[in-house]
């Protein structure tokens, strides 16, 4: 990803867009932060927030007409937040002592004619930019109409204090400036720029163009170099104090740019009010009317202000973060993550802090669906993984276990492609997928038998193996291409039959990577071809809630088909709030479970808590992950092919990692023996080692992802080579063996008919033995 791509991506996430109120405010006051400070009673902080963008908070805070209220999102659930009244309440508290940053003095001189809000603002801004500013007031008093505002709204003392700030900045003032053309031409010669604050200049002397004020002034000076005007607030309400002030600010910016010799307009699109791109969901916001001050003259009491500020929604988006525990876990949002991932990719030295962020996403795509701008975090993470693998920077531990599992599934221990055993042809190819075979091999056998019975022509083949999604998810494209083309070759050799995957992930892999194939989900096939006689609704205490696997997100036909199957089974069911295109991941997707098992645990619990009922789903991984989290969960096949031995399929435990491999091998052997009369695959010598493993140790192995076959290989090696340690007190042995990229340690003892396992663990570092 280059800088430009990053910018583009960042701009897609609108979470950092200012809220509507701030965009609408001509001075762009950070109303949201201001309200947050007010709710917390942090008056000083609130003051400082105003002061950041507001030139004279003491004055404007009291008289602002709050055009921001027109766009406040609160209006959709009650009244707009009374931002003007809140500002008033804030500036009634003592102002914090604060030094305003000022740029170094420049040589250029600027005159501001008039001393109403626009001129005062222009003077303030220009003085802070380092210019020598002189205010020229035709009347005998600085501030003109500000003094006409009733004292209880804007006390004179406040005006005086605020104007003091100008003197502190070194602004000079001249009263009784005689406003006529000669005088203007004279000051034009003496100053580098002249600002005419039309909001404060009601007298124009003789008007030689015959036009009424202020058009006359505008006509007269238009095109004259060095003159700038503002203060009429023609776009806003012409009496709007905040518009008048802002016009002084915009003129000051233009003057500064002209005097610096840079573009007057570049990058100023957001000077004026604009509409916010920020999205804020209003669905769960309850209606609250505005707080009316008890004393309308004095305004809000502190208490009332706190209450009113509490109605501010603190507008933000975070739609994706609300639904994704992964996005929440890392404490940011996609815009921030995009930058972190970009930095991760571009640093050469130092810690790659975003590795875990990149590898923990389940690639489920829910963020893209809920985001108002369709930001796809999964695309970003997958691309980053591919880059990391390409640069040989992928942490080996992130995906290795899953990739080894994939390798197992694609080995002789499981992989097998056969046409129909009776006819030797294949017009259809059943692809049960490695995880369904790992979880429920008997059902796979039954499904295959059923398909051969109900589909015409006795030409249903079967392919056992992995769809290679793990390699794809790991970002290992080379591995994926290699394995997937092997799969494709076998499919082609069978005559390109229609593929019938049982698993939604396999379905996606075929659909995306084998577009020439005719792919149809098992559920659609069963719907068309009919259910077996034994298919039954289950005796559950309440109707189960249906969970759509995240890889079906964009497959409404599959969603419908599954629901029609349930109806046909006369099985009542409930819908989850997050269903179909809005379904949540079970934590398996994207290899989240490998890279971040703890997070995957909270992801599946998040899914399990959506509904109190048992779940019914149609992905073996979803079913097993839910079951492992303690949720009662069924696979749709539990209803269509109920097992006579399984009294309570919703309570069935998730088979462990070793069991999953055994189940796959069992399935292959049983199919080979019964359908093709082939003899089973040869066993490795270590597989004959008999182990006794207590449930506690079993759990340890499961958590540490240590397989029974790993342990057998360690013991085989130790007993064969004699290289092991012995504990004199317990008589236990301890041995190690390096397999793939880890060293496995096993503590065991020899028992009557085999070996008792007491403990096992592994590390990835390699021992080079000899010291330095």
């Amino acid at each position, binding site marked *: 990803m280059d800088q430009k791509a990053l910018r583009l991506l960042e701009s897609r996430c609108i979470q950092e867009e200012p809220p509507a109120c701030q965009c609408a405010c001509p001075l762009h006051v950070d109303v949201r932060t201001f309200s947050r400070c007010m709710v917390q009673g942090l008056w000083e902080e609130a003051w400082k927030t105003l002061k950041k963008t507001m030139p004279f908070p003491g004055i404007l805070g009291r008289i602002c007409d709050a055009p921001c209220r027109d766009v406040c999102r609160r209006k959709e659930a009650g009244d707009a937040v009374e931002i003007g009244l809140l500002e008033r309440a804030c500036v009634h508290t003592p102002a914090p002592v604060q030094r305003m940053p000022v740029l170094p003095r420049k040589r250029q001189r600027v005159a501001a004619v008039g001393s109403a809000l626009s001129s005062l603002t222009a003077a303030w801004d220009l003085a802070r930019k380092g210019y020598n500013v002189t205010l020229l007031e035709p009347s005998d008093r600085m501030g003109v109409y500000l003094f006409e505002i009733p004292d209880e709204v804007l006390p004179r003392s406040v005006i005086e204090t605020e104007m003091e700030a100008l003197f502190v900045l070194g602004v000079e003032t001249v009263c009784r400036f005689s406003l006529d053309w000669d005088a203007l031409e004279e000051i034009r010669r003496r100053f580098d720029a002249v600002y005419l604050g039309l909001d404060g200049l009601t007298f124009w002397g003789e008007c030689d163009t015959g036009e009424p004020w202020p058009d006359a002034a505008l006509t007269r000076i238009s095109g004259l170099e060095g003159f700038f005007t503002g203060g009429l607030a023609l776009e806003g309400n012409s009496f709007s104090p905040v518009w008048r002030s802002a016009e002084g600010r915009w003129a000051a910016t233009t003057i500064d740019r002209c005097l610096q010799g840079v573009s007057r307009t570049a990058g100023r699109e957001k000077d004026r009010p604009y509409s916010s791109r920020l999205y804020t969901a209003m669905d769960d916001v309850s209606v609250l009317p505005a707080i009316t001050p008890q004393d309308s003259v004095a305004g809000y009491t502190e208490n009332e202000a706190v209450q009113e500020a509490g109605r501010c929604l603190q507008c933000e988006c975070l739609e994706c973060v609300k639904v994704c525990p992964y996005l929440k876990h890392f404490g940011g949002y996609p815009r921030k993550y995009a930058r972190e991932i970009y930095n991760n990719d571009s640093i050469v030295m130092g810690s790659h802090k975003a590795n875990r962020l990149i590898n923990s996403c389940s690639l489920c795509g829910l963020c893209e669906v809920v985001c108002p701008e369709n930001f796809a975090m999964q695309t970003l993470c997958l691309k980053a993984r591919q880059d990391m693998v390409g640069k040989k920077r992928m942490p080996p531990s992130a995906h290795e276990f899953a990739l080894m599992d994939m390798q197992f599934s694609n080995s002789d221990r499981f992989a097998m492609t056969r046409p129909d055993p009776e006819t030797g042809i294949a017009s259809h190819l059943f692809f049960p997928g490695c995880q369904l075979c790992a979880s429920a091999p008997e059902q796979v056998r039954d499904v295959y038998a059923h398909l051969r019975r109900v589909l015409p022509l006795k030409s249903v083949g079967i392919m056992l193996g992995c769809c290679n999604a793990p390699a794809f998810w790991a970002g290992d494209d080379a591995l994926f291409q290699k394995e997937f083309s092997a799969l494709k070759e076998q499919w082609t050799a069978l005559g390109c039959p229609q593929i019938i995957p049982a698993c939604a992930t396999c379905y996606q892999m075929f659909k995306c990577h084998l577009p020439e194939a005719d792919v149809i989900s098992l559920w659609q096939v069963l719907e068309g071809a009919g259910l077996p006689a034994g298919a039954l609704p289950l005796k559950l205490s309440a109707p189960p809630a249906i969970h759509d696997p995240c890889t079906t997100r964009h497959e409404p036909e599959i969603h419908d088909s599954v629901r029609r199957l349930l109806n046909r089974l006369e099985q009542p069911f409930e819908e989850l709030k997050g269903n179909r295109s809005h379904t949540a991941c079970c934590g398996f997707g994207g290899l989240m479970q490998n890279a971040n098992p703890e997070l995957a645990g909270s992801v599946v619990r998040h899914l399990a808590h959506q509904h109190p009922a048992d779940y019914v789903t149609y992905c073996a991984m979803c079913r097993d992950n839910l079951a492992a989290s303690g949720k009662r969960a069924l696979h749709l096949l539990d209803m269509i092919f109920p097992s006579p031995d399984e009294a309570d399929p919703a309570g069935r435990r998730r088979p462990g990692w070793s069991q999953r491999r055994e189940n796959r091998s069992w399935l292959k052997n049983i199919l080979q023996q019964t359908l093709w009369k082939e003899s089973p695959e040869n066993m490795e010598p270590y597989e004959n080692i008999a182990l006794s493993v207590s449930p506690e140790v079993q759990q340890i192995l499961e958590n540490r992802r240590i397989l029974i076959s790993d342990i057998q290989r360690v013991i085989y090696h130790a007993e064969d080579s004699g290289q092991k340690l012995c504990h004199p007190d317990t008589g236990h042995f301890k041995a190690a063996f390096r397999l793939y990229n880890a*060293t496995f*340690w096993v503590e065991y003892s020899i028992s009557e008919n085999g070996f008792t396992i007491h*403990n096992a663990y592994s590390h990835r570092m390699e021992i080079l033995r000899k*010291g330095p």
Partner: protein
Amino acid sequence: MMNPKGTQPEDLVWECQACHVNLVEGPVTLMYMGNRITVDLPQCPRCGFVLVSEAVALGKMAEVEQALEDK
């Protein structure tokens, strides 16, 4: 990088089954992702078989592995 106290007294109770001697503490070079580090770990003084205890494997060693993976 690794805790020099990689060896606990109970680790030295183990006896090398091939050489029939107790383990002693000594320097060992470990390697991961092209990085080598040297630490003291219990080992057989005769054949050099090194013991990585559960505490070391799942504690310090796992930490260092993680740090090297993210380097």
